[in-house]
């Protein structure tokens, strides 16, 4: 026993070594699976980003991220994600607050939260077609507006560009905001408002001095989550935009499908790595803000 303890100090000494090993066996399928279909693909991206076509090490791919069109794609991706996250966060927070004030009824709140749970998952190709049917060139709303003397596309078709994508993304961002922000709003105690009022505070003072600062970390954190959500989205944009590649995921599609062009595959991996870095930074900030939020509004 003592011998085992000295050679393998991390193992609990009073347990025979063999039992520990056989316990580990039970997790082998899971770890093997995750290694093949999650760890290896991740490593392929990371290593590929630094590999040359001949197989050697190179910084060329990562340096190619500085190319004008790649930088522009990242810029547009970030603009799109930030704009849709901000719009989604503001309207989502308003909707969430509207639900909190309706506390007594219950039914309204239950229905809207259930609808939000569904709509937040609603993305992809079907969402793109929903908007094509609405404000596509022969869409329902487009025809109706044109009939009433207002042509939404008088200055060019914006549905397939950043403004259009932002509008479409808002459709899943607002419900997501409601879901992630509602718990924080529920954490606000009515007593805090009463305390403010009994000390002579106005509604404005309550929001700017009490509720606002308490909700700020939760609001910021939720906005970051929405940003990551939009930044990672691919299917909606892919179904909507068939010409050109305005955002990073579509550029990666281009790199994947045109592997005849030398060096494109590894540039795709470098762009993928760039995406992971952006999402990882955003998610780290998010979890930090979550911890701050939990202090008061847990």
């Amino acid at each position, binding site marked *: 026993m003592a011998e085992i303890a000295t050679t393998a100090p991390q193992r609990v000494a009073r347990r025979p070594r063999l039992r520990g090993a056989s316990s580990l066996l039970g*997790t082998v399928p899971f770890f093997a699976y*995750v290694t093949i279909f999650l760890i290896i693909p991740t490593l392929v991206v990371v290593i590929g980003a630094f590999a040359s076509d001949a197989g050697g090490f190179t910084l060329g791919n990562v340096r190619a991220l500085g190319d004008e069109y790649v930088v522009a794609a990242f810029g547009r991706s970030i603009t799109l994600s930030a704009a849709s996250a901000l719009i989604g966060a503001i309207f989502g927070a308003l909707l969430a607050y509207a639900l909190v004030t309706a506390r007594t009824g219950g039914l309204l709140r239950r229905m809207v939260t259930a609808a939000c749970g*569904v709509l937040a998952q609603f993305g992809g190709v079907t969402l793109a077609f929903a908007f094509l049917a609405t404000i596509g060139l022969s869409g329902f709303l487009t025809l109706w507006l044109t009939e009433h003397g207002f042509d939404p596309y008088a200055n060019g078709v914006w549905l397939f560009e950043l403004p259009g994508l932002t509008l479409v993304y808002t459709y899943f961002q607002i419900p997501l905001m409601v879901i992630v922000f509602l718990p924080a709003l529920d954490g606000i105690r009515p007593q805090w408002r009463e305390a403010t009022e009994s000390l002579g505070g106005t509604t404005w003072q309550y929001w700017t001095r009490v509720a606002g600062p308490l909700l700020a970390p939760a609001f910021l954190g939720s906005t970051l989550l929405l940003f990551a959500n939009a930044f990672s989205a691919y299917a909606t944009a*892919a179904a909507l935009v068939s010409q050109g590649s305005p955002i990073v995921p579509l550029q990666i599609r281009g790199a994947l499908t045109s592997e005849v062009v030398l060096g494109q595959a590894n540039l795709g991996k470098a762009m993928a790595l760039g995406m992971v870095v952006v999402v990882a930074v955003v998610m780290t900030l998010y979890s930090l803000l979550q911890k701050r939020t939990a202090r008061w509004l847990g």
Partner: protein
Amino acid sequence: MAGLAVRRARRQRAFRWSVLLVLGTFFVVPLIAMVEFSTRDAETWPLLVNWPRLSETYPDLANGIVASLGQASLTSLLMLVLLVPTAIWVRLRLPRLRRLVEFLCLLPLTIPAIVLVVGLAPVYAWVNYFLGGSSLTLVFAYTVLVLPYAYRAIDAGLSAIDVQTLAEAARSLGASWTTVIWRVVLPNIRSAVLSAAFLTVALVLGEFTIASLLHRTNLQVAIDYLGKSSATMSVAVSLAALLLAFALLLVLSLFGKRESR
């Protein structure tokens, strides 16, 4: 003081209904538009519910639907086989590994699907070599995609019961580990397992990225393809798929309600 509260309640009601009205319009208009768009051709909906004629007219769509249903059921199965025993086992015998398993399960949240495709391409070259290029092989990638959601559901179910005590009681009565997992723990987390499976089905039915870029077919790929030839039909199928997903997720949210009560 009372006057203030009444006035605030009235203001809040006005605020509530204007927000609901404006945002409600924003969310409902695209759905109405889909209904209007898909009924422009009176033939569309009758064709959609007539499976033999549909598979004859749009064979790609029929293939996509069949592929998606197969993928959804196989992914649920693989997810459960992989995750449930591991989650129980780690809780019972290897508590030190819990953080690692949790980290691995939540990892796909920080790796966008489009990035995963890039890394999966070489792995799938091997999958093709061993198993052929059937679109059912996407199940392997989908199981990774649903890991975070399924893990959370199952972990929440396990946290709600005292796994350790249940297992010790069963073991002291002479049950084997298989019996403990299959006949003692599993029945106690039935609704968590069901909600994990529902989530998996909903996610797989909506998946497009991986299938499209690995050149496989499923429902979403078929809809996208259909959009290029028949706009009306593609909107009708989108609406039908959407209603199916709505129904699935609504059932799921009712589950969640019962669970928490």
